[in-house]
């Protein structure tokens, strides 16, 4: 089994920005993304809750290191100040991982 070391970028934040984050991640070069609905609480989330829609979402990208940095930088510059969100990175070994490295 040939595995390829990549990074998993996880962003959890207010629903209102998560679609944009997913799309911007793809624009920066991610081959795909995985979104899911979650419920959360954090230092700012109480302040920022919006009615009538799922409150928080999680977005994951499987990407090479350089792209991971780019995405995290973009997300942190664009959204961290005014929106409730958290982002982290972890190491993953991906099956047929070549496919997820930007051409």
């Amino acid at each position, binding site marked *: 089994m040939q595995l390829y070391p990549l990074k998993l970028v996880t962003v959890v934040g*207010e629903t*209102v*920005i998560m679609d944009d984050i997913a799309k*911007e991640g793809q624009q920066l070069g991610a081959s795909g993304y995985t979104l899911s609905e979650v419920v959360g609480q954090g230092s700012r989330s109480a*302040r*920022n*809750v*919006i*009615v*009538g*829609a*799922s409150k928080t979402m999680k977005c994951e990208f499987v990407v090479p290191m350089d792209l991971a940095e780019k995405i995290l930088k*973009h997300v942190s*510059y*664009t959204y961290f*100040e*005014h*929106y409730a969100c958290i982002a982290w990175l972890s190491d993953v070994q991906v099956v047929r991982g070549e496919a997820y490295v930007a051409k």
Partner: protein
Amino acid sequence: MLTIPCATLCWHIPALFAVFNAEQLGRIVESLERNLLTPIPLCFVLGLICTQIHGGIKIPKELYLAIAIFLLMSIGFIGGHELAHEYQEHGISTIWKPALATLVLGCLTPITSYVVLHYLGRLSIADSAGIAAHYGSTSAVTYAVANSFVEQTQHPANSFLPTLVTILECPGIAIALVLGAALSARERATKASASGAPVRESKLGEALYEVMTGQSIMLMAGLLVIGFISTLFMDTKGFQPFYDFFQSKGMLFRGALCIFLLEMGLVAGERLGDLRKVGPFLVAFGIVMPLIHGFAGVYLGHLAGLNLGGCTVLGAIVASASYIAAPPAVRLTLPEANPTLSITAALAITFPFNIAFGIPIYFEMAKWVGAT
């Protein structure tokens, strides 16, 4: 043409409260009782109580969304149906004046709100514009409750009121957002240059487009057209089941409204704790502003020829604040605005105030300005 009613309006306001103190207070209280002791506001109260005692009622998000879709479709469809009858009988002669009055109110209310919030309340530009976007738009559920109220008092509103709700939905949000974006441009420009991220700049257009093609507008306006067309082209028998399904006096609409208000009570109740955070000014704003906007709605509605029920309902929808379409649009375009302020004001102050006290007051106002 517009300056005169505005002037008259300003002149009327103090008189209004003077008179209310004396004679009509009794009638308002009676009217309140008749309004409050019905299932729709009582379900709202049940929701409030449930949150205060940490009770277990949970309305699934999907049920809430399903009811919202049904209510919006229903308002639109029956609106289109009634509009077709009105149109067949009178052409657009009875409609254009109220429509214009509504448009004018939709453009003025965000500005009055902004001015009061920023200059009187000393809120930041972003917060003022954000809250103004909520108060410039309208709440379809407040419309539905007001409509039920006037039907129960045997003074049904003019048939084309749903059309006015549709007209009132967008302009207020758009004007407040553009205002907010323009006025805070400098602040945002400096920040953007520091971080090197011009991304957010472009979201105003996006957000405006999203408001104008949002769920509320699409469903109400879409079903309005569908109701209009099918009234013209279908025979009565074929039309009947659709009418029965959507009609606002029917059991489905009223029952759905009960469940919806229960959920609104739960949501508003969760916000009650934020009342302390928002401060006394915003609490006062959330009660007084609707009274002023409501009176403007009643008054202009009367000038435009609406009947007693119509004036009341127009007053209620002008007085109401949006809590569905406005919040995400404001969040995207004015991220510095604190959403707790706007949502608490719209949802935990103005909405319950209108449901419980506002609607009967607008009804008395409408009588008082002479609507019949």
